[in-house]
């Protein structure tokens, strides 16, 4: 009986949290038109969330590509079809690895920074001070950071994919000797615009999801050292789970 009650309780609190996030999302969306009037603030956040994540995104993209080159070659040469390495790895990167790994890295690098920044602003009364100066923190703090993340993630995804394909080529063509002409021409022949669109759509959706989680967790964090720490952790965990869940749903919908 107690087990059932506990299950029901946690189900209820889960539904309540989903509702709270949805209301928060609506409030952010409501402030976006006014936030767009101050493009400088958004550009600053694209820089914070995007440009500052470039190094980690590019490094990881390169390594993921190189591993894909090794594993892909090892798999394909068993069937004597190494030439398909370009197609296979490009599709894997564009449709799955690029968007998902970028979102996970973004949550770890930029999401945590967003959550702890907003949480600390709350803890040090900065948000209350803004409200007292008749400035809505949703417009001045939350909306620009949310938009900055939404813009940054698809861009980072594209960069990740490009560097990844370079990494595959580095190992597959330069080192293991796959024929360069076959590698590129097969890739160009079989990767469709719709495949690229799938990657772009996923990047956009993950960007919205990860940015929303980060600003929500930061804004609703308990204003103590412990509370901000917990909000940061939750940002990474929830973003990661949500990204993978959404990835499955989007893939199923688009295949």
């Amino acid at each position, binding site marked *: 009986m107690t087990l059932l009650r506990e299950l029901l309780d946690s189900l209820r609190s889960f539904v309540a949290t989903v509702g709270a996030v949805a209301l928060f999302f609506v409030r952010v969306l409501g402030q976006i038109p006014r936030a767009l009037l101050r493009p400088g603030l958004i550009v600053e956040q694209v820089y914070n969330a995007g440009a500052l994540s470039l190094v980690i995104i590019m490094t990881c993209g390169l390594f993921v590509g190189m591993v894909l080159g090794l594993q892909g070659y090892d798999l394909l040469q068993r069937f004597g079809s190494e030439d398909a390495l370009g197609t296979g790895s490009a599709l894997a990167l564009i449709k799955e690895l690029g968007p998902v790994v970028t979102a996970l890295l973004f949550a770890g690098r930029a999401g945590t920074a967003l959550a702890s920044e907003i949480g600390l602003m709350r803890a040090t009364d900065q948000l209350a001070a803004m*409200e007292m*100066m*008749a*400035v809505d923190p949703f417009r001045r703090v939350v909306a620009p950071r949310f938009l900055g993340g939404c813009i940054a993630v698809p861009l980072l995804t594209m960069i990740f994919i490009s560097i990844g394909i370079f990494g595959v080529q580095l190992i597959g063509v330069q080192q293991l000797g796959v024929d360069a002409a076959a590698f590129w021409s097969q890739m160009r022949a079989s990767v469709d615009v719709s495949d690229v669109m799938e990657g772009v759509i996923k990047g956009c959706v993950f960007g919205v999801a990860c940015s929303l989680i980060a600003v929500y967790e930061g804004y609703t964090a308990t204003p103590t050292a412990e509370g901000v720490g917990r909000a940061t952790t939750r940002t990474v965990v929830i973003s990661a789970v949500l990204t993978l869940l959404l990835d499955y749903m989007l893939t199923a919908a688009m295949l």
Partner: protein
Amino acid sequence: MALAQEPHIALPETAAIIEIRDVHYSVGNRAIFSGLNLSIPRGRITAIMGPSGTGKTTLLRLITGQIKPQRGQILFDGVDVTRLSVRDLYALRRRMGMLFQNGALLTDLDVFENVAFPLREHTKLPEALIRHIVLTKLQAVGLRGAARLMPAELSGGMARRVALARAMATDPDLLIYDEPFTGLDPISMGMIVRLVRQMHNALGITSIVVSHDVEELSQLADVGFIIAGGKVAAQGTFSQLKNAESEIVHQFVNGLADGPVPFHYPAPDYYEQLLA
């Protein structure tokens, strides 16, 4: 100034800028205020004092509309703060300036930009004019030379002076100070006392100072309220307060360890607990 123009707010013929009428406020089962009545005179410095945990900061949050009472009215210039929509409340807040305990400066902006913040958010003044206003306000608090420092580089006293300059930037009618003396050395404390007085004399605005530093407040404030047990325990000038008959006021003003506010937090019997 153009900032202060609010269509719905007519100035009534009253000496009080803030009237608190029969306010009840509780958090969970704990009643913080039960029937609080208080009126703050216009153009004076009013001190609000009381032992820790009596809800002094809560009172400020009620006055500024950050929280709403369960019952009662809070009138700012005759307008009931508790019934305003968010938009009207924000309009009203442009006439208030508030100094938070730790300054609450925006940590990603430097001192100059912090003071310029309310101007940039609410006005479309040309850059040259904003610069002029900010430098004037910083000069008034003696920190014009610190304009390009970041908040992290300031001492506690300096941060509070910058926050004061920021609160002054839009020339409010009412300035609220939340514990302005806490954690300051005597020099900084003296500076803040002098500044509050100066700002007040030069601009003729109403000030509310919340604190428990009776000594500093008696030099500074014109009138004082002592809040205890969810109600106003005493009010009047400082000489009146010092001679007040109420036991709790006597304990508070004279800083006694024991009295109606006990030294010991409620606990089971000492011997029984030790021997158990």
